[in-house]
């Protein structure tokens, strides 16, 4: 801090410091602040998103078809930053499904759809009577359970800010409402000043702040008057009138205006012992604590030149934009825009079924004349108007340059993340460049890149650890094999007859091999397989116990069949056959190896599955080979094939141990094979079609 004065002393001088940049867009507030706050009509359906605040959504408490009463909690907060949502009216839970969210992307989020019964019955109010008690934990828990979130726009859960971990000196009530058109806070102050001040007192109590500054922009004289009157005798609430300039309602800008201090980059106001609440939040807190009503409705400004009766409405959360706009009337011009929020920071409503949530302060339907849409983007002429307008003293044109060239390091060097996306730069840009859009894009990209990098690092570590583990396992296996070999050698030394047997078996195998090598080359493949089969049968008597033997036989049969098909395929289409033959060899090989390895029941099962797989694959191969011939193959052929498949499966089952699981698995395999065949067929048909088309 530059001066020796403490924060409070500095603030008490009553000075308004100002902030750099800022703009003065036409205010157009008179459109909607002429009438008192009306009540929105009771709609037939309410769309209550589970998540209406920043943080985590709560857990849904109700089921489909449940009857709910107004104010009944629909979710309960989960761990972390979380708030409940409450039923806006009485009725029945019709649906729980993703629905368009009140977010710029409109990405669907889980939403409870409540059909109103028209009675609007409430659960009994639960006022918190002794809020002035020195112990505030229960009070804060109450505020949390009432679902209060910041109503200014960010919808940060209020209970966090109401019970700050630091010593708070200053509470700032933000009633600046600097966005053009919006008057929700303005009218709320005009008609509910006393209640707001009660809410402020509760906040003063929970935060322990010594002073409250109530900041209002000087374009709301009526509100200033009533608020001043309401806190006449409160010596710890000071009303500060700030000059009208956008974005003086931004949290950081308002702090700079009122205290001359800047919230350090990447820190929060709380680090300056300041906490800021929106005026609407103060009102909601009063309602929650003194009247015992959860946050189920808020003031929403429905305005714009295209709205027939622009006004402020008490709107139940979950009301659709469509219902609200219908109540106020709309004369749509060509390409009418509907904006949720103000013209500077709001977002286009992509679907009028978008619900009103806790952060929604305005539905705007402006005319093209008053809020001119952006034209075609032109080249940046570096006029510097944007830099002059930027309240954060950034250099938007440099940011744009680096944003376009995706130089992320430069962007961070130029403090992209201190951009508050207020839109002042894009507003003044004569080249009509959507600067904020570029920045948002770049911010997302940088975050994504950081995440990717972290993920890559994690993947690298996992990969390396896996490699290390495999290496370890390999070493262990080698060691085991060596030991086993050692043991066998010792055993053989002791038993000569066994040695002879082995020698005999080897000789037999050799003879067979020789025979095969003499065989004609065309049948080479087939012969190879038979070798494999022979080998396995040869090896089996020495080492395998009975069921194993059978399995091996089954595998061998499957393999032989497959080879046959492969051969057939070779004749038809060499190119297609090759990869299959290769890929097939590995599973069977595996099965063989396992057959000669340790002998657990699981192992056996595995082998059986492998056999099934082999079969499935063989089928695949056959189908691919048949493709050329069976150009017009229809479903009946398919069925035939699958029947034979089934028989095959049964056959192999009869050979193997028949556990129910096994059968099931194999059936699945068969089914899959069938499905695949169908797929292939479909593809083939498509191919033929295109061919015909080409002709």
């Amino acid at each position, binding site marked *: 801090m530059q001066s020796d004065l403490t924060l409070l002393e500095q603030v008490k001088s009553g000075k308004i410091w100002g902030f750099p940049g800022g703009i003065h867009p036409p205010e157009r507030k008179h459109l909607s602040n002429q009438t008192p706050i009306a009540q929105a009509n009771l709609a037939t359906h309410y769309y209550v998103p589970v998540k209406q605040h920043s943080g985590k959504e709560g857990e849904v408490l109700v089921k489909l078809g449940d009857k709910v009463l107004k104010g009944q909690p629909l979710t309960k907060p989960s761990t972390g930053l979380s708030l409940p949502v409450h039923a806006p009216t009485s009725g029945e839970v019709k649906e729980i499904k993703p629905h368009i969210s009140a977010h710029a*992307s409109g990405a669907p989020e889980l939403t409870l759809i409540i059909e109103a019964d028209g009675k609007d019955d409430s659960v009994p109010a639960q006022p918190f009577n002794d809020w002035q008690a020195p112990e505030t934990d229960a009070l804060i828990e109450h505020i949390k359970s009432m679902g209060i979130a910041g109503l200014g726009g960010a919808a940060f859960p209020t209970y966090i800010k109401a019970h700050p971990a630091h010593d708070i000196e200053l509470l700032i009530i933000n009633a600046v409402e600097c966005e053009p058109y919006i008057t929700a806070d303005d009218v709320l102050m005009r008609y509910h000043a006393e209640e707001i001040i009660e809410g402020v007192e509760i906040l003063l109590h929970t935060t322990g702040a010594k002073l409250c500054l109530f900041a209002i922009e000087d374009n709301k004289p009526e509100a200033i008057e009533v608020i001043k009157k309401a806190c006449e005798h409160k010596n710890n609430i000071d009303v500060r009138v700030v000059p009208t300039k956008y974005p003086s309602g931004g949290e*950081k800008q308002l702090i*700079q205006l009122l205290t001359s*201090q800047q*919230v*350090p*980059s990447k820190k929060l106001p709380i680090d300056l012992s300041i906490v800021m609440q929106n005026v609407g939040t103060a009102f909601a807190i009063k309602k929650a604590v003194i009247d015992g009503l959860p946050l189920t409705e808020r003031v929403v400004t429905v305005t714009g030149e295209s709205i027939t009766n622009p006004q402020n409405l008490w709107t139940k959360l979950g009301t659709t934009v*469509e219902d609200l706009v219908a109540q106020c009337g*709309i004369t749509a011009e*060509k*390409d*009418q*825009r509907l904006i949720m*929020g103000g*013209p*500077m*920071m*709001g*977002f*286009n*409503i*992509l*679907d*009028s079924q978008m619900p009103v949530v806790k952060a929604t302060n305005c539905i705007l*339907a*402006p005319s093209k004349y*008053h*809020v*001119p*849409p*952006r*034209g*075609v983007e*032109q*080249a940046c*002429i*570096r006029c*510097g108007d944007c*830099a*002059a307008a930027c*309240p*954060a*003293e*950034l*250099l938007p*044109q*440099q940011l744009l340059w680096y944003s376009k060239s995706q130089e992320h390091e430069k962007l961070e060097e130029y*403090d992209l993340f*201190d951009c508050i*996306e207020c*839109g002042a730069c*894009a*507003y*003044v840009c*004569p*080249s*009509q460049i*959507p600067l*904020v*859009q570029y920045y948002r894009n770049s911010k997302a990209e940088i975050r994504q890149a950081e995440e990717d990098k972290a993920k890559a690092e994690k993947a690298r570590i996992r990969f390396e650890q896996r490699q290390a583990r495999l290496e370890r396992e390999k070493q262990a296996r080698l060691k085991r094999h060596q030991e086993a070999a050692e043991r066998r050698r010792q055993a053989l030394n002791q038993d000569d007859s066994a040695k002879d047997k082995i020698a005999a078996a080897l000789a037999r195998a050799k003879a067979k091999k020789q025979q095969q090598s003499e065989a004609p080359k065309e049948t080479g493949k087939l012969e190879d397989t038979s070798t494999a089969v022979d080998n396995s049968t040869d090896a089996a008597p020495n080492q395998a116990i009975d069921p194993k033997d059978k399995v091996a036989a089954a595998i061998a049969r499957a393999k032989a069949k497959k080879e046959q098909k492969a051969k057939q395929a070779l004749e038809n289409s060499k190119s297609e056959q090759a990869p299959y033959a290769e890929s097939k060899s590995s599973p069977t090989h595996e099965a063989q190896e396992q057959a000669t390895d340790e002998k657990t029941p699981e192992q056996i099962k595995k082998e059986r599955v492998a056999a099934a797989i082999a079969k499935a694959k063989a089928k695949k191969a056959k189908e691919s080979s048949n493709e050329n011939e069976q150009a017009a193959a229809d479903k009946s052929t398919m069925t035939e094939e699958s029947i034979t498949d089934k028989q095959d499966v049964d056959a192999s089952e009869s050979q193997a141990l028949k556990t129910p699981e096994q059968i099931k698995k194999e059936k699945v395999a068969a089914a899959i094979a069938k499905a695949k065949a169908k797929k292939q067929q479909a593809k083939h048909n498509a191919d033929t079609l295109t061919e015909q088309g080409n002709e």
Partner: protein
Amino acid sequence: MKFMSNALMSSPHGRVRQSTNQVMRQVMYATAAGLAAQLIFFGWGVLIQIALCVTVALLAEALVLSLREKPVRATLSDGSAILTGLLLALSIPPLAPWWIAVIGTAFSIIIVKQMYGGLGFNLFNPAMAGYVVLLISFPVAMTNWQPPAELMAQSITYLDAITIIFTDFTIDGYSMSQLKLGVDGISMATPLDNFKTQLGQGFTASEITQAPIYNEHAGIGWQWINLGYLAGGLWLLKNGIIRWHIPLSLLASLTTCSFLYYAINPDLGLTPVAHLLSGATMFAAFFIATDPVSASTTVKGRIWFGAVIGVLIFVIRQWGGYPDGVAFAVLLANMMVPLIDYYTKPTAYGHKARG
């Protein structure tokens, strides 16, 4: 109820109604006063040069844009090429041969502007870079300013202007060097040129300014031209098209330098007023140095940028090889812009009270 939901579009939804085209157009309008003064003192040649330069600028821009496969019509309509042509035309001698205008403008547009990437990407002020190319390539033609109309032995009609630009001779067969002879039969140069030459021959400032091309403040004609551009510049300032930083710091630094020098060496230097009202001072301060693309973009940077130009103008006028130093000063300052911008980056919100 039926309405169109608009496309996904980032906030803000409104904008100011001032577009780049309007900015360019207003700058052009603002040259009117100075242009009128030039017309009065130097005759029709000015208009012919403007017509030539603007035409060539548009053609050159269209050519490069079509080669680069960019939208031709939309880009041409932003007015930046026309403005470049206009500014260059106002800088070159009104009776310079036609190919001067053509080469200069083509260089400005094709090499200085488009080859760097077009509007918004050029490091150098295109008009001034074109001017400098002409000046160093064709020093004779580029310093051939005829004397102001009232001092000329022959008056020049618009037909004379056309023929001398395209054929080097007036209808009556006078050449440029004959035209430069004043009423007294002495060859005339611009005041700044004359001053420099005479100074080199050992005359004192007070002796030199006795010559008929000077009046009590600066050169005949030139002071009105400068006042005209000053007026135009003030109008631009009032309309918020340009900001005060660059012109003010430029003029202030030029005044300071010339005042200091004049105070020490009254015999060797022009008065600050003469500096301000001679040559292209005001034109540079309000129309050239304020070109946003090639100027610094930070507030502090703009002040430095203007000051650097002011000092350089003085230095080149006083000691350099050319009579006026505006174009060189601007180009040198353009080169310094990245450096200036880097060191004058404003501290963003939240980075001040660190620690």
